[in-house]
């Protein structure tokens, strides 16, 4: 375990930023966002960012290629933006897990080289939670917010910041930062305190009972989907603030003299989601709504050794315009139902 004082943190950021672009959560216009660090950009004290950090690897919009017709020939150019080395500081345990979930989608065949390149160039410095919110339920998915993953894990106390490398990549970066060795007593004390708070959270008892692979037939035709989705606006807020929603659309943009093929996030809540030649396979909001939760709670674990497609970050609880969310779904149709 290594440490630095809170006062020395900016100096450490400067060292990291000397070799790679450093991003961290900062407060802007009353909201918390990831921003590029430079002298004067302060680390936020907020629990988490409004949007998830999935943009770093899977940006909302990304150019894939360009087609241009000249005479009788057509040129196809790879116009992806070059990935540069970057470091993301302050990622919470829930969001770190989300990267594993995205990896299982993008890094299997057909291997996504755009995503892979960013994963290779990025270093994740996670930060343990010490003041979880009432909307947190990471434990439901077996995530330990006091012991986050990533390349380096960090614990922040009143006066110090503690650092521990989890991977070779993290080890390499940490060795350059000139931090002092220390015992892990302070970190253990913080973990113990946070554990107690976690048990007191209102959603502490939420379980995944009744969900998981093999539950499709039990859940698909449940009548409760109708009332759960009754007032869903069909907007994309939940999917766009979600760290694990990974659906995208590939579209062509006519620039006037060429075609730019780009991809952008899509939302299963939208009426034109996965629209095909024959039309749309989900014509009502009930079906679209069901798809989102079945994907996270049944289909994803079915295809990924039981790992759920939700990390309990609580963003959808905070942001849904009608306050409908995965917790309400789990409490209505799963093993949590009263």
């Amino acid at each position, binding site marked *: 375990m290594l440490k630095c004082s809170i006062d020395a943190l900016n100096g450490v950021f400067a060292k990291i930023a000397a070799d790679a672009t450093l991003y961290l959560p900062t407060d802007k*216009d*009353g*909201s918390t966002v990831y921003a590029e660090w430079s002298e004067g950009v302060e680390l936020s004290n907020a*629990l988490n960012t*409004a*949007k998830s950090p999935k943009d770093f690897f899977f940006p*909302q*919009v990304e150019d894939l290629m360009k087609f241009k017709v000249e005479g009788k020939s057509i040129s196809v150019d790879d116009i992806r933006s070059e990935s540069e080395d970057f470091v993301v500081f302050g990622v919470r345990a829930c969001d770190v897990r989300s990267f594993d979930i995205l990896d299982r989608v993008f890094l299997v065949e057909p291997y996504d080289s755009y995503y892979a390149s960013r994963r290779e160039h990025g270093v994740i410095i996670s930060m343990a939670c010490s*003041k*979880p*919110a*009432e*909307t947190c339920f990471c434990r439901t998915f077996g995530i330990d917010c006091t012991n986050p993953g990533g390349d380096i894990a960090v614990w922040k106390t009143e006066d110090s910041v503690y650092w521990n490398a989890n991977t070779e990549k993290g080890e390499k970066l940490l060795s350059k930062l000139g931090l002092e060795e220390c015992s892990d007593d302070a970190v253990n004390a913080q973990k113990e305190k946070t554990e107690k*708070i976690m048990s*007191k*959270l*209102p*959603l502490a008892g939420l379980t995944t009972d009744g969900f998981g692979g093999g539950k499709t037939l039990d859940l698909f035709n449940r009548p409760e989907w109708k*009332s759960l989705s*009754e*007032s869903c*606006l*069909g*907007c*994309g*807020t939940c*999917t*766009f*603030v979600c760290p694990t929603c990974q659906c995208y*659309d590939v*579209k062509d*943009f006519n620039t006037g003299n060429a075609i730019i093929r*780009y991809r*952008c*996030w*899509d*939302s299963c809540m*939208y*009426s*034109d989601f996965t*629209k095909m030649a024959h039309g749309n396979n989900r014509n009502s909001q009930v079906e679209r709504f069901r798809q989102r939760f079945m994907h996270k709670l049944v289909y994803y674990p079915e295809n990924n050794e039981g790992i759920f497609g939700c990390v309990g970050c609580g963003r959808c*609880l905070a*942001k849904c*315009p*009608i*306050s*409908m969310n995965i*917790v*309400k779904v789990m*409490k209505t149709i799963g093993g949590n139902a009263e």
Partner: protein
Amino acid sequence: MQKITRDVLVEKAVSLLENGSVSCVLGWKKGEFDYDITPAVFESKEELVSDFIFDDFCGANFSKYLVQKTRKVEGKILVFLKPCDTYSFNQLLTEHRFDREKVYAVGIPCEGMVDIGKIKAITGDGISSIVCGDTIKVNTIYDESFDINAKDVLLERCINCKSKKHVAYDELIGEEGEVIESNRFDEVARLEAMTPDERFAFWQNELSKCIRCNACRDVCPACTCEKCVFNNPKSGVENKAPANEFEEKMFHIIRAFHVAGRCTDCGECSRVCPQNIPLHLLNRKFIKDIDSFYGEYQAGAEVGSRAPLVNYTTEDIEPCDVFERGND
């Protein structure tokens, strides 16, 4: 803070359900915490008694739900409308968006709704309970307690409430209310006083936060197209994400133009924006301009009124005058 209690509304709903006047009730359903209310359709006394809620977190405007619900539900729908919701209700009727005969509207008084975001900015995370009142009492899992003056944490639209008057109802609980003086155009005037460059920078900064979730459009009672051009692959302007900085602004500006003269200033767009963009200011600018060009006009104040923008008169302002003004 609300003068009317949940019990009065439940009693009203149960009696109308039980005597067969209505077949279901559109109301607010309590959530996991004390602040996450969900709009819901109640079909039985049991559901109403156990889950119906009415308190300071019931900001959601139900008028737009009537467009879809009136097509699906057999019999009448009971809907509870706050004064500002009644303007949306009338505007939708003006545009023939739902069948008035299928709705039983009960007007209820509103003392202003509060913004959980503003409360959390004071209390921080970890809210374990909230008790509404003129003083809102908040407890957290960190054993902290807060007494917050409800007036300090009102939703933006309630700070600048334009009317306590119910302009549509079948029945009232409480008084009809009055149109009140508001300062709702002050912020617009502040933007107007900026230089064009400052104003551009203001909107650039705000709209660059947009994630194109479309929540503003989807909640907006003036946005009831059966198929929005932005969702229609055949429209040529369909986009799920801003392709560039221009498109980011274009979506919101086009939407503001589309609802100009029809927007009642209900404020739902800004309430639901996950990025806290003050979208209502775009619409208010149009309302302010329409007022100054054509005389005061409030969309939804009555059913069937002809909005200035669709009602040509020889006194109408000439485009060149508007253009001149833009050069100031």
